[in-house]
């Protein structure tokens, strides 16, 4: 994992840490900051993935990657990931995800991608409440579960490296840049 998203995940976890013997509820601000930070860890992980896969991973390309990923948006990532959060790729974009030489029909979403897409939707919904709606209660359990979930989906994404997995990731990264929309959709 790139350094920045990893640091964000650690920061999110540290916000929930208790001193030895400390009991009682954590301050709401720490819970909300933790949730927001877990979301941003996943968001920045995806930016890094898109940059490395579409621009290139070489150190010399870092500046170009950073310029490129500024074109990505929260809503764009969400729209693209919504296309792959079910068992099959959304029919509207399934041809785009079909690997070369594979037959027509539904395209199955690999579990690592489905889980990451769902985690992103969950994290974005919770981050909305954490940052903007103080009337909505969020528990320490919500924050710790989200932190673990983000860590888990990132690890699974990184472990998925078969040729089919890499092809799927590449298509998904392209769709994130395209904000989930293809021209043929009109």
């Amino acid at each position: 994992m790139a350094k920045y998203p990893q640091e964000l995940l650690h920061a999110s976890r540290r916000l929930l840490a208790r001193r030895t013997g400390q009991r009682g509820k954590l301050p709401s601000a720490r819970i909300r900051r933790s949730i927001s930070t877990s979301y941003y860890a996943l968001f920045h992980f995806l930016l890094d993935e898109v940059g490395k896969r579409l621009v290139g991973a070489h150190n010399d390309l870092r500046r170009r990657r950073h310029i490129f990923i500024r074109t990505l948006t929260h809503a764009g990532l969400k729209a693209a990931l919504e296309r792959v959060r079910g068992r099959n790729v959304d029919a509207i974009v399934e041809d785009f995800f079909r690997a070369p030489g594979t037959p027509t029909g539904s395209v199955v979403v690999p579990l690592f991608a489905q889980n990451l897409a769902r985690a992103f939707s969950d994290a974005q919904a919770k981050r909305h409440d954490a940052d903007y709606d103080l009337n909505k209660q969020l528990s320490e359990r919500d924050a710790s579960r989200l932190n673990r979930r983000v860590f888990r989906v990132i690890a699974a994404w990184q472990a998925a490296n078969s040729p089919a997995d890499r092809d799927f990731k590449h298509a998904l990264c392209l769709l994130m840049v395209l904000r989930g929309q293809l021209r043929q959709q009109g």
Partner: protein
Amino acid sequence: MKQADFSVLKKRVEDVTHDSPVGDRIKNIVLEADRDDEGSDFLRVILEVSSLDDVQDADLDPVVDSIETALLELDDRFPSVRFADAA
């Protein structure tokens, strides 16, 4: 966008959580619809529980997975599951 009645969604949550390890701790299920600041609709699925002090986060993962899978079959709004202390 596919949307189901809250009564249908709540019944589905009750069904998938009933036999789960935390089924007997769930005192109430609250559903709320909202739209985030990016314009995406989502559902809050709030499980009000008596106590989860002796339950690990990992034990809750299958429960949450089941709720998400079940509700996404009925409704396109993403179900964001939360745990709250029952009053």
